[in-house]
């Protein structure tokens, strides 16, 4: 049997290119380090937890140079690509940039081990927001900026990935959701991936800038505003405060709620909003479900908080809305410890762990549109039983969804649940209690952040054994890249001719 030659040279060349960009991104944290922590400039010692300036500088330069070297070395790479290179590039790029992106954390010495640094970085790039930092406010701003920037870069990658690249590769029924009509006919915003990426990124950047401005109007410092905007638009969840967003005024909380909702919406819809094609936005069934879940869950939990926790109406609904939106969009900011709520209420939130944002957004999870297809398909089963010979397709936005895609969605969901179950078993075997194991697995796979039990909104992941951190990092990667993209690289068929 002859092995199919995967075009590794090209894969490496792309990695090289990405590393060059990452190097530049790391260096962009230097001004913040210099401004907030000028004495660090005279401290040349790495890894002693005293200064981070040279940690950032050296890892930025190192990353850039490694990238440059790889890029130049592979300049003769042919452009022959198949889907295989596509899967490989997508999976590898998240791993490679996380490996290099963790260097500033590790070299600064503020992180205990490389495992911790890698976990934090992977959590950043996958827009999860799970942290191992016990005292965030003790970490210098230069590092915090890079930490928030990993979210923003990850979110940028995900938008293009989910709207332009994964549909081409046919992952998890993503054809359905690609761009324009989240329907089976995939007419895109713009025919060329590159042109489409530019437009989507423009929306992403503009929304981030608007949010930063609005946060600053609420008396948040420029640094905190930009870090929180990065984390919001990427539906990440890293905050610069130990108490997350609870540290800020209701105005700030409302601004963040609005932008979390926007970030969890299909970016193609934002594009149509700009183009004034409002009917497309209104008629999107996924959007209706997404908004419907937010309203429904907020009302239920809000009423629960009023009657069971004796909270004031405004605070009850603000807490409820913030937590619901934060979990549903898989952001993971917190303003209240939902584990202190009555069990029924946080169980409701836990169900949202599995829903996730809209497809084509920066949100993780199963995605609202898949849930929609699953629900519709299940309900149609009754009609199919009565009319065995009838052709009763699942319809999305009034268009029938091809049977094939429904199958892919079902198997995606099955893989998602099995991965979650496996995650629970592994985490429990490592020594977590039942609730924490369930929470950790669901939260990492859904790229959410806060979980249950000992990993709740006010806790962090610092106490998990190293092996557990590596495993959770892997779950984050699986969840972020729609499972199949990563698993296919490990499948025998991938390497067979």
């Amino acid at each position, binding site marked *: 049997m002859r092995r199919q030659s995967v075009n590794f040279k090209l894969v490496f060349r792309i990695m090289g290119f990405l590393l060059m960009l990452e190097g530049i991104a790391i260096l962009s944290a230097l001004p913040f380090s210099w401004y907030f922590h000028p004495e660090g400039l005279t401290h040349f010692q790495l890894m002693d937890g005293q200064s981070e300036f040279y940690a950032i500088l050296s890892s930025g330069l190192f990353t850039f140079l490694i990238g440059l070297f790889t890029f130049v070395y592979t300049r003769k790479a042919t452009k022959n690509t198949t889907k295989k290179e596509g899967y490989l590039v997508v999976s590898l790029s998240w791993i490679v940039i996380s490996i290099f992106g963790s260097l500033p954390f590790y070299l600064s010495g503020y992180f205990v081990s490389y495992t911790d640094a890698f976990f934090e970085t992977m959590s950043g790039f996958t827009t999860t927001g799970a942290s191992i930092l016990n005292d965030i406010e003790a970490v210098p701003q230069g590092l915090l900026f890079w930490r928030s920037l990993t979210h923003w870069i990850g979110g940028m990658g995900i938008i293009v990935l989910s709207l332009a690249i994964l549909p081409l590769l046919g992952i998890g029924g993503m054809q359905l959701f690609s761009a324009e009509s989240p329907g089976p006919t995939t007419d895109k915003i713009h025919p060329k991936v590159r042109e489409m990426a530019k437009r989507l990124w423009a929306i992403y950047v503009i929304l981030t800038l608007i949010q930063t401005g609005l946060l600053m109007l609420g008396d948040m410092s420029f640094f905190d505003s930009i870090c929180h905007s990065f984390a919001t638009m990427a539906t990440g969840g890293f905050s610069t405060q130990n108490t997350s967003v609870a540290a800020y005024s209701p105005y700030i909380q409302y601004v963040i709620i609005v932008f979390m909702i926007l970030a969890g919406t299909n970016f193609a819809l934002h594009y149509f909003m700009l183009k004034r094609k409002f009917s497309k936005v209104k008629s999107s069934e996924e959007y209706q479900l997404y908004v419907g879940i937010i309203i429904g869950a907020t009302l239920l939990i809000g009423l629960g908080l009023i009657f069971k926790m004796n909270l004031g109406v405004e605070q009850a609904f603000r807490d409820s809305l913030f937590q619901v939106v934060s979990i549903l969009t898989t952001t993971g900011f917190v303003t209240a410890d939902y584990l202190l709520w009555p069990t029924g209420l946080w169980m409701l939130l836990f169900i949202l762990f599995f829903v996730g944002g809209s497809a084509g957004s920066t949100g993780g999870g199963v995605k609202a549109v898949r849930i929609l297809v699953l629900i519709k398909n299940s309900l149609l089963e009754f*009609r199919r039983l009565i*009319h*065995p*010979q*009838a*052709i*009763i*397709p699942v*319809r999305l936005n*009034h*268009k*029938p969804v091809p049977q094939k895609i429904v199958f892919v969605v079902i198997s995606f969901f099955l893989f998602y649940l099995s991965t979650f179950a496996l995650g629970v078993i592994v985490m429990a075997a490592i020594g977590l209690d039942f609730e924490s194991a369930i929470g950790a697995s669901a939260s990492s796979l859904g790229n959410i952040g806060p979980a249950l039990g000992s990993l709740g909104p006010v806790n962090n992941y610092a106490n998990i054994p190293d092996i557990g951190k590596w495993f959770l990092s892997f779950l984050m990667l699986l969840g972020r890249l729609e499972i199949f993209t990563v698993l296919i690289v490990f499948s025998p068929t991938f390497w067979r001719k």
Partner: protein
Amino acid sequence: MNIIIAGDGEVGLHLAQLLADEQHNIIFIDPNEELLNTVSSHTDLMTITGSSISVDVLEEANIKGADLLIAILHDEAINLLTAILGKKLGAKKTIARISNREFMSNKNLAILEEKGVDIIINPEQVAANEIVQLLKQTAATEIFDFSDGKLQLFLIKLEKYAPVVNKTLTQIAQEFPNIEFRAVAIHREGQTIIPTGNDYFRENDLAYVITKPDGVQLLLELGGKQNFKINDIMLIGGGRIGRMTASQLQHEMNIKLIESDTKRANALTNELEHTLIINGDARDMDLLDDEGVKDMDAFIAVTNHAETNILTCLHARSLGVKRTIALVENIEYIDIAKNIGIDTIINKKLITASVINLYTMEAKVTTVKCLSGINADVIELVAMPKSAVTKKPLKKLTLPEGSIIGGIIRGDESHIAIGDFQLEAGDKAVVFALPSAIHKINKIFNH
């Protein structure tokens, strides 16, 4: 009139024969030589073997002298191209048959007209419209609208207990003085009678009645009929007619559409969101029973097989479905199908011929309907200034034998043609005529 017909099969052939009988000069272009040989031996027309999109062929057919070019092949692209070429080469008027509904919009019609396609006809659309109308007026067997429904032609079958049975027209007129309709023809045992005052109505007669909208209720009462509302329909065949019918009705009625071709059935789900598409063979009686055929209000069979359509309709009929409509393309079958009890027959050839006939009349004609089952046409004619019909009131007018004026439309008003009414120039008259009378009646409407 010099007419060139470009066809590729039965529809063109039927049309050619029909028009040749009405004393037009027909040149028939068809790529199929065998077919042409049989035609030319039967009918008085000239045939050319070849493609209608060849300029040489069109010139050989003397396109310059053609008054009308009719492109009626199955492929709409060829039809459109034929019409465009023909117009450029000198045909006075062009007609193209199309099957794509997209061309029906005014915007697209303008594009086609500018390119040289004067008239488009879409037989499937017309057939679907007829089905829709039949389902809304369930008491009648066939209905035709004239001038947007200001006058309607109903075909009703007289029931045993109908009040009019065994009475003459004169008797009926005395009993019901406020009558707003007029019987223009009776079809009995294969014969068509143009009734006079002394003719009797009999049980099981098929009566063609021209009526004003106000008269419908009384008409149905006298015919012993009741309208009933249709909610559940079973449609057999997902071809163009089935698809168009379903898309017009799916919001008002529950439709089950049975289509045997899996691919086509899947494609139907794209277009028909509110129709239940079933992939199966309608000849499988178990399938029909499982899907509850006996509870249907109407059963419509529009597959390409007349036999399937007739048989499934009979099955539905035997289970008590009140309304059955079958698409029957073999003209020979129509009488048989009617005799064994199927309500209504739809025939695309007749429909197409109806529409095209319109453009071959010398008088100003606005509508022509070829009736299925009997050999007669209903024409809407415009009375020209100084024409013979405008000179005397109706009762003193001598119409050609085998023709009768049913109603008149003057501006926005409609009148039933009785007694003292006198036509004026510009009035539209709905005339019922046997083929032998068509040209004579044409004459008295011209000056």
